[in-house]
């Protein structure tokens, strides 16, 4: 593990322990500065990232998790069949304002179908979804328009909300920066890399300030840094009171979420 990796793991550990985002950023930056000036192996200078994160928590404390608010998404008894195949059987998920829910499970277990049912894009054969508030949906792919610039996407989203061109563009660029992406530029969406196009997708889904944000494996094509930015952003949105549902097959983020729905057959049913 080199210094950069150590710092990354350390940063993730701080977030996981709910150290305030600003404080965590400062502590990580200071450790990085120290390593740059003094050199040395971070494992010797600071110790294991987990242990050092625990020490930092002792020194500066953590922010109490915001109390979960009212129920924003309530899916009950969701069953879906395609022909003879039952992809979802009596799946249930309740997400409150200020919570992140992860939908996990093996490939083909119906994660995306479940999310699309929550989004109202697919009808279930049985069950009911209740959404309270505005809904945002970020599909796994698609969702961007090939022949438009990122800016033009922002303007379109803005138009849907009655926001003028210039403020919409500014808001879009600001939201993109939260993901570590500089959206200023004259590159058509179809010429963006897969990861960047996904950032555009994500940016758009957060622009409308939805109360419920549904994300289907939103990190396709992301490098490690973008992935960290994404989770920082999700935590920020969560702490701002949004209800977030993420479909993921990556289990290493699960301890940062509040609710897990495992759709692997025989594991169905949400639990905290």
């Amino acid at each position, binding site marked *: 593990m080199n210094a950069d990796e150590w710092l990354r793991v350390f940063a993730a550990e701080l977030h996981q322990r709910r150290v305030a985002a600003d404080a965590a950023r400062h502590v990580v930056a200071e450790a990085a*500065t120290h390593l740059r000036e003094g050199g040395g192996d971070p494992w010797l*200078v*600071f110790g294991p990232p987990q242990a050092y994160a625990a020490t930092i928590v002792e020194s500066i404390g953590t922010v109490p998790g915001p109390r979960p608010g009212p129920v924003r998404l309530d899916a009950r008894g969701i069953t879906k069949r395609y022909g003879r195949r039952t992809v979802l059987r009596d799946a249930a998920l309740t997400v409150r304002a200020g919570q992140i829910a992860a939908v996990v499970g093996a490939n083909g277990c119906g994660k995306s179908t479940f999310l699309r049912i929550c989004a109202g894009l697919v009808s279930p054969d049985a069950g009911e979804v209740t959404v309270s508030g505005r809904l945002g949906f970020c599909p796994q792919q698609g969702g961007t328009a090939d022949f438009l610039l990122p800016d033009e996407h922002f303007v379109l989203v803005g138009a849907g909300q009655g926001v003028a061109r210039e403020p919409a563009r500014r808001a879009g660029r600001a939201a993109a920066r939260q993901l570590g992406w500089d959206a200023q530029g004259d590159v058509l969406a179809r010429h963006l890399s897969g990861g960047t196009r996904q950032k555009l997708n994500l940016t758009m889904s957060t622009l409308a300030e939805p109360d419920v944000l549904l994300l289907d494996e939103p990190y396709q094509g992301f490098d490690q840094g973008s992935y960290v930015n994404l989770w920082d952003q999700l935590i920020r949105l969560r702490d701002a009171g949004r209800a977030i549902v993420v479909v993921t097959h990556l289990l290493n983020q699960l301890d940062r979420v509040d609710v897990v729905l495992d759709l692997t057959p025989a594991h169905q049913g949400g639990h905290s």
Partner: protein
Amino acid sequence: MDADRRGQWLRGVLDLCVLALLRDGESYGYELAQALDVAGVGPIQGGTLYPVLLRLQRTGLVTAQWREGGSGPARKYYQLTDDGRAALHHGGTAWLAFVAPVTDIVTKGVDG
């Protein structure tokens, strides 16, 4: 010297050392570590130093701000506050009152 023992001593007094080093002007983590080493306290690892600095900052004994160095990288500079100055005075006096008799006793033991 027994590293464990030295570590225990340091835990009790490192905050005072840091406050004392900041008495005549601001400094940043790496520079403080070097100053302690040069003074003969021995190498202080970042994992020991920064939690102390954070605690001092949280309790208002020091303030901190990020600034670009002249040509170097941005660094977090720590400054002593009035409360820090008072804590240094009280804590330092108490420390001196403590080590004087300890030194006395140990000196007799070692010399005898």
